């Protein structure tokens, strides 16, 4: 197996809040290999975006603080790098795209100039070379009439086109890793399909590794090779897409899949729900964070926080009483 291009080890990120310290990410481990898409999935507040922002050190410190852990990119620990060295990596070897392209693009500059800036910062190209590259990039992301569009301002473009511009900017310097934080969440479903298709073809073409953050399990099933499920700042289960969807082992993953209406759920009848809601991350309860919502909780769950251990088929699961394989014994 190849060495991971990006590895996060035991990452812990907290925020100072008026109510006390909020631990948003609490001991997260992730490994991303060349050419693969790793989906990080979870609900609001599970720490998926904070994990992504911690990797690139894009969180304002304070109130945020990366308390411990390693972020290894091509073997170097990003936490040990100075501001200058980090800037040389960001938007260059590691690029990021966000949910809302309108807030990530600067409304007062033409989109072509914004892509050109990404080139100017990281490369020594002549002006004509840069312009040629901008046109090439816009073509690459499927923007028609790139020569005309590069002179447009962000507000003149549709949401889908703006996301394409963001992707062009992210690809400007041939990144090894692309971090995509809910890149299709703000888009309509037919436009989402276009963007997912584009990301997939670009990933293959440039052999990138993609860290794809989403709340949508459907998107995970269609884009990822591996998945990490986050709950209350921790990875509760991680494995291949097939493992997680066919036979989830953590009760939270099972619950999430059951909550989704689908062709398999009975129309107009109650869905199986996860009762309650996520715990307060300022005052995390002892033991397993999911136990109060869990139908499989046992006494041990109250006292001992389950560690991520090897489960069926080599998937990792953090649970004292994991969901059995479908068809085995007490399968639900």
């Amino acid at each position, binding site marked *: 197996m190849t060495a991971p291009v990006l590895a996060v080890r035991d990452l812990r990120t907290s925020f100072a809040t008026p109510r006390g310290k909020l631990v948003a990410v609490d001991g997260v481990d992730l490994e991303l290999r060349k050419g693969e898409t790793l989906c990080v999935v979870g609900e609001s507040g599970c720490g998926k975006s904070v994990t992504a922002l911690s990797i690139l050190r894009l969180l304002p410190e304070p109130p945020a603080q990366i308390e411990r852990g390693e972020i290894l990119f091509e073997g170097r620990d990003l936490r040990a790098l100075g501001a200058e060295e980090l800037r040389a990596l960001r938007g260059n070897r590691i690029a990021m795209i966000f949910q809302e392209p309108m807030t990530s693009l600067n409304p007062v500059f033409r989109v072509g100039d914004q892509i050109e800036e990404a080139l100017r910062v990281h490369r020594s190209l002549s002006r004509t070379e840069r312009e040629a590259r901008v046109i090439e990039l816009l073509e690459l992301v499927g923007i028609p009439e790139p020569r005309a569009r590069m002179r447009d301002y962000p507000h003149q473009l549709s949401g889908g086109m703006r996301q394409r511009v963001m992707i062009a900017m992210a690809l400007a310097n041939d990144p090894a890793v692309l971090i995509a934080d809910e890149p299709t969440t703000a888009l309509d479903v*037919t436009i989402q399909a276009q963007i997912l298709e584009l990301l997939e073809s670009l990933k293959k073409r440039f052999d990138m590794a993609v860290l794809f953050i989403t709340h949508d399990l459907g998107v995970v099933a269609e884009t990822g090779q591996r998945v990490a499920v986050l709950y209350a700042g921790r990875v509760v289960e991680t494995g291949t897409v097939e493992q997680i969807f066919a036979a989830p082992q953590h009760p939270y993953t099972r619950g999430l899949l059951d909550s989704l209406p*689908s062709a398999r759920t009975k*129309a*107009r009848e109650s869905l199986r729900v996860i009762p309650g809601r996520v715990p307060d991350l300022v005052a995390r309860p002892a033991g397993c964070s999911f136990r109060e919502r869990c139908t499989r909780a046992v006494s041990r769950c109250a006292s001992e926080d389950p560690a991520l251990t090897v489960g069926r088929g080599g998937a990792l699961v953090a649970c004292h009483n994991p969901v059995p394989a479908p068809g085995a014994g007490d399968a639900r």
Partner: protein
Amino acid sequence: MTQSLLSLRGLTKSFAVGRGGLGRRARLFAARDVDLAVEPGETVGLVGESGCGKSTVARLALRLIEPDSGEIHFEGRDLRKLSRSELRAMRRRMQIVFQDPFASLNPRMTVGETIGEGPRVHGIASGAALESRVSELLDIVGLGPEVASRYPHEFSGGQRQRIGIARALALEPALVVADEPVSSLDVSIQAQILNLLLELQKRFRLAYLFISHDLRVVRHLSRRVAVMYLGRIVEHAPVETLYARPQHPYTEALLSAVPVPEPGAGRKRIVLAGDVPSPIAPPPGCPFHPRCPKAFDRCRVERPELRELGAGHFSACHLAPY
């Protein structure tokens, strides 16, 4: 045939939009010739992408905005012909739940005041009777009576949506228009609210006009579904028929674009080219033809009418097998 609870006929709504200088005005047709009926106790889903006109139809149905033309019949009466006071009395029977539980609750009113406002204003209950009605409504939506004295900011999104639902139920409506009521919620909370809506429908024989961009959710709740594109209904059918045998290429593409949580499902995804055209200058002929993989010459010049294919299945496509 029994009378529909709500029936919309030929509803059209346009807005004047500024364009360029010299006082030139263009019109944006947000809804055009919309026909739709909702029977007592049933759910009709209205789906489509941003800007297709589905929320405009929701607002027209309640006469929160005035149509340019068309009729709105509710419980047998033409809402457009009612006087102000008659309309107000009628409003008790038709309520709305909004998408954003953060923006749709008044932050300066306690939960109890918000839920009790309708019964109080309509002179149905006051004093101790109002208080007990509020407690009852809170119980119906799964909240405790103690929350009545608290303010919206103290609640999570899912709880606020429960409060919004309690407010809608306060006047014992026959129809609830739900405009993307679960779109801003996480899936585990979304499932809780969907279950609540289903339970309330059975208990109070509510009819829902359920507006959503989420085809999975619409399939789960609805008996019949209408698909909108650029202000018009392009297909309308019983839910099983629409999902199993869509007869409009737009519905087909929309359904195929929904990501399914089943890896390797081996589905063929139809990826439409381009964006939705501007509703200010919709394309001639069939409004979908510039993005349609099946378009042919006739589609570029002649707009297909919404026609019945049989058994309540309507489609506006030249290729549909009439």
